[in-house]
């Protein structure tokens, strides 16, 4: 493809990223604005909202709770999603369609109904509500996401590599670990990112299945009654956003330095 085409697509992608980022950039902007209302015109610059944020223990605890749940959910549902995706793409077992449909049920079922029903079940077995029950419910709704992403990665892959490994006498487990896993890597990363995002934003299941440790979105929704508390939430949103951004850049910097010092051997 010629150069001008590359340019057009590149420009488009940058514009698209702008579409994704521009609304979000208002969050840090207003976190420095000396008003409890998020509205134009801007007032004076302040760091007060950040001071409030640090002093608001429940807010920080809620973030911590959400991170715990998010990390666990993304890893665990990706593992389960991987097992399912591998099955459906490698073996043409009878009942593939109904089984895929069954695993997709959490996508279709209204979350309030899932929340109420799961709470009834937990109550029946006398299981205490905690972050663990919230995480379990999030895992259930994330599995179909993980599975679909991984199916789209694994579908149509050349089976010869796996077969070669098995011909060489590898156990299925070693074959999986040495062949399938690396092939699936981009899908695994995509799945981790998506599952984390879902868990980090979900609040209906978190409400019904959680107890006195609210996750971040749940806490934020309940605080909407108090506009004075929104700015410190904005400050926290900015910190999360800028930290993730900084971590990505830092990781990239570390990698580049590594590449340079090793005279580009790795990539």
């Amino acid at each position, binding site marked *: 493809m010629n150069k001008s085409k590359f340019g057009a697509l590149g420009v488009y992608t940058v514009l698209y990223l702008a579409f994704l980022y521009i609304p979000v950039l208002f969050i840090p902007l207003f976190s420095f604005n000396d*008003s*409890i*209302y*998020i*509205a*134009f015109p801007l007032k004076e610059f302040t760091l007060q909202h950040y001071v409030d944020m640090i002093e608001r*223990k429940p807010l920080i*605890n809620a973030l*911590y*709770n959400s*991170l*715990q*749940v*998010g*990390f*666990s*959910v993304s*890893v*665990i549902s990706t593992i389960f999603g991987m097992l399912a995706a591998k099955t459906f793409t490698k073996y043409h077992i009878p009942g593939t369609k109904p089984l895929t449909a069954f695993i997709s049920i959490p996508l279709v079922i209204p979350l309030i109904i899932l929340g*109420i029903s799961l*709470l*009834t079940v937990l*109550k029946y077995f006398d299981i205490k*509500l*905690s*972050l*663990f029950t919230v*995480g379990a419910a999030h895992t259930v709704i994330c599995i179909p996401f993980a599975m679909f992403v991984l199916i789209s990665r694994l579908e149509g892959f050349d089976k010869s590599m796996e077969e070669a490994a098995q011909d060489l006498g590898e156990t299925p487990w070693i074959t999986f*670990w040495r062949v399938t*896993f*690396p092939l699936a*890597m981009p899908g695994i990363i995509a799945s*981790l990112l998506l599952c984390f995002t879902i868990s980090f934003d979900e609040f209906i299941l978190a*409400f*019904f299945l*959680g*107890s*006195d*440790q*609210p996750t971040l979105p*749940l*806490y934020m*929704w*309940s*605080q*909407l*009654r*108090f*506009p*004075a*508390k*929104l700015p410190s939430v904005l400050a926290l949103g900015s910190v999360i956003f800028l930290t993730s951004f900084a971590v990505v850049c830092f990781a990239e910097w*570390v*990698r580049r330095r*590594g*590449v340079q010092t*090793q005279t580009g*051997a*790795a*990539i």
Partner: protein
Amino acid sequence: MTEFNAKEIVARYRSGKLSRRELGRLMGMLGIAGAGSAMMPSMTAAAEEQAMVFGWAGYDDENLWPTYVEKYGSLPRFTFWGDEEEGVTKLVTGFEPDIIFPCSYKIPKWYSTGRLASIDTSRLKNWNDILPSLRSMPGVEMGGNVVWVPVDWGLTSVVYRPDLAPEYVGNHSWEILWDEKYQGRVACFDSLVDCVTIAGTMAGLDNPFDYRSEADMEATRKRMQTLVPNLLYFSNDSTSLEQGIASGELVAATVWNESVTRLKAQGVNVEYMQPKEGGAQTWVCGLSMIADSKYEDQAYELIDAMLEPSSRAYEIREFGYGVSTQGGYDLVSVEELAELGMTKDPDHDLAQGTFQEEIQNEEGLQAMFDEVKAGM
């Protein structure tokens, strides 16, 4: 399995040689760390042996439960609902808090879950400090037992911008929500009790909380059918409504009285209406105990703590709400109260508005509300 070595992993990562094995291990560690710490009780959460309060956000403030915090050294446990309806649903499904924070118009619904305990008022030292008018209001006693202790009250009415709608200065009316001049510049609570009943009032119902008659329902529906297209949106959060008013997107909106205090404090030119059609609406919220609570003694101590004069005075000053006890008013000066739009005589203030009652035929009203929203 070899030891997990972060340094080595970083080094490998830098060289671009991080293998899938290490990456897998890293993922595993993250997952186990996350899941493990999620299973462990959070160190920051209040101790397990404390009662749990299930209610509105914002009440997790030590100043509101002074004697309890003094005795136990920390706040009780809290679980918040975003909306009282969700709270009922969660309780019906089997959630087990010790104390809940319902409002007057929902008491019958909470009571019908069969989970409310009867309260022995002799165990509440501050019971007699509650204003007699509130102590005897509907909802306090159900089935011959005290099941609910009023603690605070506030108003629902329209806040408007006198600079944008000058013709309503001195002419307070709910009619502003229907005013075509302000089409798309007004908003209402997404609520039956805080919005649809206003349409009932404007439709001329004798009791805007009773929708058992077909004629009343249809009259209100007609009013709603002209209200919905005139509104910019329905919202349940004070934050959105206040922001709309502050930015000038909205000329008028229904809000609770505390919003007016906040808007004024932020320098926004606003006025709170005392509509000529029946006045503002008044709501009262309070505490109820859940039957068979494991922490019954603590539940009593919590209710008593919230009735302490210092707690009630704190709520007047910090939240801008009216409160239920004489002791609370005694600690706040006339000037402070005037600034919040209140007087030393809570009964006088309460008598200004219409008490929000339980809605009769709530199901039917909700169905009508949904239909009108859907354009039918």
